[in-house]
């Protein structure tokens, strides 16, 4: 009866091993193969005879994924029958007879009988599909992240548009009041009322208050654009600018400019507001594209280089026609624009963003006669109070 049971159990074990989709094999405490199920044989491309009695590590586990030799002494599978622990690994590959490999997840469990470790049973599966899915997922996530960044950028820009129109309305109120008070003052002074002077002075004082109110509205707008929801994090400036360059290049659409991106690999990460710095770069690049509208073989160069100790300098340079001196003088003033459409807030906001990062934004002529805008970003230590 007991023998019968044992035979039955043995039979079941065989059935399970044969039916399993996972590869299963056993090794003795010297690493020689005792048995292997059909899945294991099939996955490794050897015959059963080629596996039984051979050291499994030398057959299928001899080399790391990157091609380095894999010494037996470091093998987690063999470690099971040395330290008596279960070892689970999913970062390695098994090698087929034909020299190809596949990513694998395996569990090596020691076989212990009466306190003596006799060997180990290894169960493994080919995780090529899982790795592919993971890679696809990571790619999708990356794409989603880029899209989200684009979206954030767009919504920030459109929020600025809404702000601009709201601002136009809001600023009209103090302007109306200023015009009213000033006209009243003039009429009081030209008239013959006994209290004309007092009333004129009163009106002028009120006009001044309203001018200050208008200034306050503008200051609030700048604050919103430059500092609102500011989030600084430690970023690789080269990568951040690179993303912005790609974004701007996308926005350039069909226009055929040559865009060159030069990045110094040896720059330290900086605490920056990534989105805002990207806004600055996109803004400068769009200005460059506009300058190149009627230029043959237009070319934009973007440089990211180390600056002083730990800082970074970013430059956007074009081979367009450059800017007249009088335009260059008012370049950074809000609501001044040389463009037919536009609010004239772009460069003024860019400068504020850069200054908020402790840097400066400068416009100069480059050797081609085109414009070069360059800005610096400094290490956060120099202004750590923010």
């Amino acid at each position, binding site marked *: 009866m007991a023998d019968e049971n044992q035979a039955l159990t043995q039979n079941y074990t065989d059935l399970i091993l044969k039916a399993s989709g996972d590869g299963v094999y056993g090794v003795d405490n010297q690493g020689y193969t005792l048995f292997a199920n059909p899945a294991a044989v099939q996955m490794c491309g050897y015959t059963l005879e080629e596996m039984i009695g051979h050291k499994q590590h030398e057959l299928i586990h001899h080399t790391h994924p990157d091609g380095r030799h894999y010494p037996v002494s470091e093998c987690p599978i063999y470690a099971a029958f040395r330290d008596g622990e279960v070892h689970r690994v999913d970062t390695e590959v098994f090698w087929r007879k034909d020299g190809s490999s596949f990513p694998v997840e395996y569990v090596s469990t020691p076989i212990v009988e009466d306190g003596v470790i006799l060997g180990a049973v290894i169960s493994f599966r080919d995780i090529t599909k899982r790795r592919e899915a993971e890679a696809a997922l990571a790619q999708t996530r990356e794409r989603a992240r880029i899209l989200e960044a684009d979206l954030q950028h767009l919504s920030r820009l459109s929020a600025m548009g809404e702000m601009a*129109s709201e601002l*136009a*309305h809001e600023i*009209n*109120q*103090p*302007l*109306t*009041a*200023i*015009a*009213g*008070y000033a*006209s*009243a*003052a003039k*009429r*009081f002074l030209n*008239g013959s009322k006994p209290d004309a002077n007092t*009333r004129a002075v009163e*009106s002028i004082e*009120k*006009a001044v*208050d*309203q001018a200050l*109110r208008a200034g306050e509205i503008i200051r609030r707008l700048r604050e919103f654009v430059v500092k609102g929801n500011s989030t600084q994090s430690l970023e690789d400036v080269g990568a951040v600018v690179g993303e912005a360059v790609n974004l701007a290049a996308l926005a350039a659409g069909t226009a055929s400019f040559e865009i060159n991106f030069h990045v110094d690999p040896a720059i330290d990460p900086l605490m920056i507001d990534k989105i805002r710095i990207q806004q600055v770069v996109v803004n400068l690049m769009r200005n460059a594209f506009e300058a190149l509208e009627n230029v043959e073989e237009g070319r934009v160069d973007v440089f990211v280089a180390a600056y002083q100790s730990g800082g970074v300098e970013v430059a956007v340079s074009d081979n367009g026609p450059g800017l007249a001196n009088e335009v260059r003088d008012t370049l950074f003033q809000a609501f001044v624009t040389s463009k037919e459409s536009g609010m004239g807030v772009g460069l003024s906001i860019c400068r504020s963003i850069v200054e908020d990062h402790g840097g400066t934004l400068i416009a100069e002529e480059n050797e081609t006669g085109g414009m070069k805008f360059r800005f610096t970003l400094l290490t956060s230590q120099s202004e750590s109070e923010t």
Partner: protein
Amino acid sequence: MNDTPTVFVLDDDDAVRDSLGTLLESSDLPVKTYASADSFLEALGSDAVGCVVSDVRMPGLSGLELQERLTEMKIPLPVIIVTGHGDLPMAVKAMKAGAVDFIEKPIDDELILRSVREALSRGVKMHADAAAADAARANIERLTARERQVLEKVALGHPNKVIAYDLDISPRTVEIHRARVIEKLAARNLSHLVRMAIAAGVIGADGANP
């Protein structure tokens, strides 16, 4: 409120309202200011004379709604609408609803003073017309039914003989009624009588039955 023609300035922005008020005062125009159309209507007496200068965009009643309300209540006040940035479509609506003018912010002083002066004289006339109509209506109330019938037909230009025939009375009796009507309404002449009949709504402005 009294019968001095007054400019009623409505704007929810304190500074805009105050500056407009000051500007009008500096040109010797009597001004009253209100922060909303609602508070203006609340304070409004039945004999207000003058004109309204109202911002189009205000909390509560808008300038446009105020214009509609004044027309509805038959209050004889011309309205000048002041618009901010981009409120132009609203200003056009207000003009269609009967506003006499619209002015854009920031406001040109010459422009608004000219517009206000015109509106004021129009307001004075509108007020006088309304008062005359009220008086005429009150007097017509005092007529007997027969006298009223005679007035109606006289105002429509019917000769005494026709009126006598229509009402089945003698021409002499018509003449007596007619004399009583002219006396009660203190009409200076026939055309004055007709105007009063029109103002009081006895006959339509086109000389037909209302």
